[in-house]
């Protein structure tokens, strides 16, 4: 049993506070969904968990089975059992997937895993054309192929807790179903999932035990699967409205929005994650 515990997490990106006291706990076999509108801090949460440079934790904690992850570099967080499936998986020219995974597994002492045969199994299962495994990491893969590739890697690396950052973005329905169902199977054998998403449709195939609504860097409501259904029907208006109603006491939120806009003048979306 493994538990990823996030407590009162505050994160700054380029001196702007993006997350403002987020608390969550994901244990083996569970699926927690974090849903929120654009710019609410969803990607910041996943990047902060994985320790991406530029995401500064100003207070709060992230622990895995009580072990403090914050001092650890990214690769050691992966070694500890975390996996981040990226929203936009980076192309890495000249580096093969097999080599990457072999080096990753070697670093965590799991040399008994035969990466070549495991990757092939996972590729077939997820519907990823095996010849794509010979390409440099993510290079010239379509959006859907990249997400299938992330899912295959998650399976081969045998992570304990997976953070899925908008796994559904850019996915056609077949790819979405293939990825979600594969991950759902992994949860049966103990994978814990923190599923960050804008839309409900991923949760049709990867049912969430808990749903959290993230707005302006805070979890404003948590509940069961019904909450995701409600968002599917009504959108985020209800949660945004509550902010407007409390405008008088949340001057900082308005200020935050304004300062974000100032630092990111080319963005149409004043709430856009400046590092996204």
């Amino acid at each position, binding site marked *: 049993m493994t538990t990823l515990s996030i407590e009162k997490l505050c994160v700054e990106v380029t001196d702007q506070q993006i997350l403002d006291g987020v608390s969550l706990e994901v244990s083996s076999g569970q699926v927690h969904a974090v849903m929120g509108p654009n710019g609410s801090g969803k990607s910041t949460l996943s990047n902060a968990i994985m320790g991406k440079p530029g995401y500064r934790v100003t207070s709060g904690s992230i622990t895995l089975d009580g072990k403090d992850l914050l001092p650890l*570099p*990214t*690769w050691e967080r*992966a070694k500890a059992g975390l996996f981040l499936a*990226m929203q936009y998986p*980076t192309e890495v*020219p*000249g580096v093969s997937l097999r080599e990457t995974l072999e080096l*990753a597994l070697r670093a965590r002492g799991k040399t008994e895993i035969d990466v070549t045969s495991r990757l092939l199994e996972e590729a077939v299962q997820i519907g990823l054309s095996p010849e794509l495994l010979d390409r*440099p990491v993510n290079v010239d893969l379509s959006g859907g192929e990249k997400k299938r590739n992330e899912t295959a890697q998650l399976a081969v690396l045998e992570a304990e807790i997976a953070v899925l950052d908008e796994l559904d973005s850019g996915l056609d329905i077949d790819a979405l179903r293939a990825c979600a169902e594969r991950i759902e199977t992994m949860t049966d054998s103990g994978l814990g999932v923190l599923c960050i998403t804008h839309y409900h449709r991923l949760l049709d195939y990867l049912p969430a035990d808990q749903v959290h609504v993230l707005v302006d860097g805070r979890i404003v409501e948590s509940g069961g699967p019904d909450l995701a259904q409600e968002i599917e029907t009504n959108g985020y208006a209800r949660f945004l409205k509550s902010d407007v109603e409390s405008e008088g006491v949340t001057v900082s939120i308005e200020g935050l929005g304004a300062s974000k806009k100032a630092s990111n003048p080319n963005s149409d979306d004043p709430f856009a994650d400046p590092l996204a």
Partner: protein
Amino acid sequence: MTTTRTSLFQLPNGGESVGSSAFLERRNSAAQRADEAGLPSFEEEIWRYTPIADLDVSKYELGAPGGSLLDFGLTNGVDENAAAVIHIVDGQVVSISVHDEAVTVLTDGTEFENLIGSVTQTGPDVFSDYNFAYCSAPIVIHIASNAVIAGPVLIRQHTTTGGLAWFPRVLVDLGENSEATVVEHQTSPDIDALVCPVTELKVNQAGRLQYLTVQEHGPRTWQIATQMAEIERDAHLAVSQIALGGEYARARIDIKMAGQGSSGDIRAIYFGRADAQHDFRTFQRHNAPHTNSNLLFKGVLDDRSRAIYTGLIRIEPDAADVNAYQTNRTLKLSEEAWAESVPNLEIENNDVRCSHASAVGPIDQDQRFYLESRGVPEDIAEALVVRGFFADVLDQLPVATISDAANTRISELLALEGPGQQR
């Protein structure tokens, strides 16, 4: 008539040039021109940023007794399929073996004298003039017309004697509508020597030539190289460099799209370590219409190494319908590394598409984060990203054995021992 001159370079006692009197006179006048010009100054734009002021030619002597071949390094194993193998050590021919009847190697004679210097006899600088004057073991490689040479012609030029200065010279004359690959491999151990090669490439109509230079000099060797090419109608040339060594390693690469419909590619990878300095001066000259050229350089600088790149795309008034591109990208792995990159365009015709891009910076942090997020330790992730940075150039080089060996060498330089490597 004998004149008394004080030349920067003196042939050793007993050393003399061979050839017809007309040829010797051409060489003699090249020496006079060079002596009158004297060594260049770093105040000249084409020598800017270079340590040319540190060059003390009195340290060096022309001519050496000749040594033994060194390790074959990156060209190990290329011999098996080679169309010809030429070994030259310290300016002396050790062996010439030709395995393809379309390939002729000339070292003297009328045809040799007519060809050598036919792409560039004068200039472009004093070192190429000295080369014509004092070149030892010059080689002309002639490839018959309408021939496709499957394996590469391999020329190993090894410098093994400290204090030696020598002037290797190669001319490739590719017959009409022929296809060939030539590899020039420059090697020296850790010795203080001066090597000034000149390469002349004559790509006749509809010919397709790949010319790859592999430079594995020792850390105290100076190289001042000049490559001049003329590409005739509908012909194609790709000149490439893998430059890994040298204290100061300069290569001037000057290609002329002389005939309409011709095209030329220039590619290089270079890796600087310790106090090494790489210096590339490129020229893409479009003298005819419907011509294309494309340049892609990728360099990595570690420690206190330095790199200079200056490139000119020159498009003459008559050269309409031209595409010319130039990209130089440099990764700095160390704060103390230094790079200068200066692209230039001179365009005298309106019907052209040109671009140049130049970037000096650290490694791609997103790529590194991606690999680390899988669990690859940070130093290994960085090395993988650096090695991968070279991949697209290595993939375009003509001899897979050499590209693979270069990839392995780069992994070693990055202290990377991957379980499996892929370009």
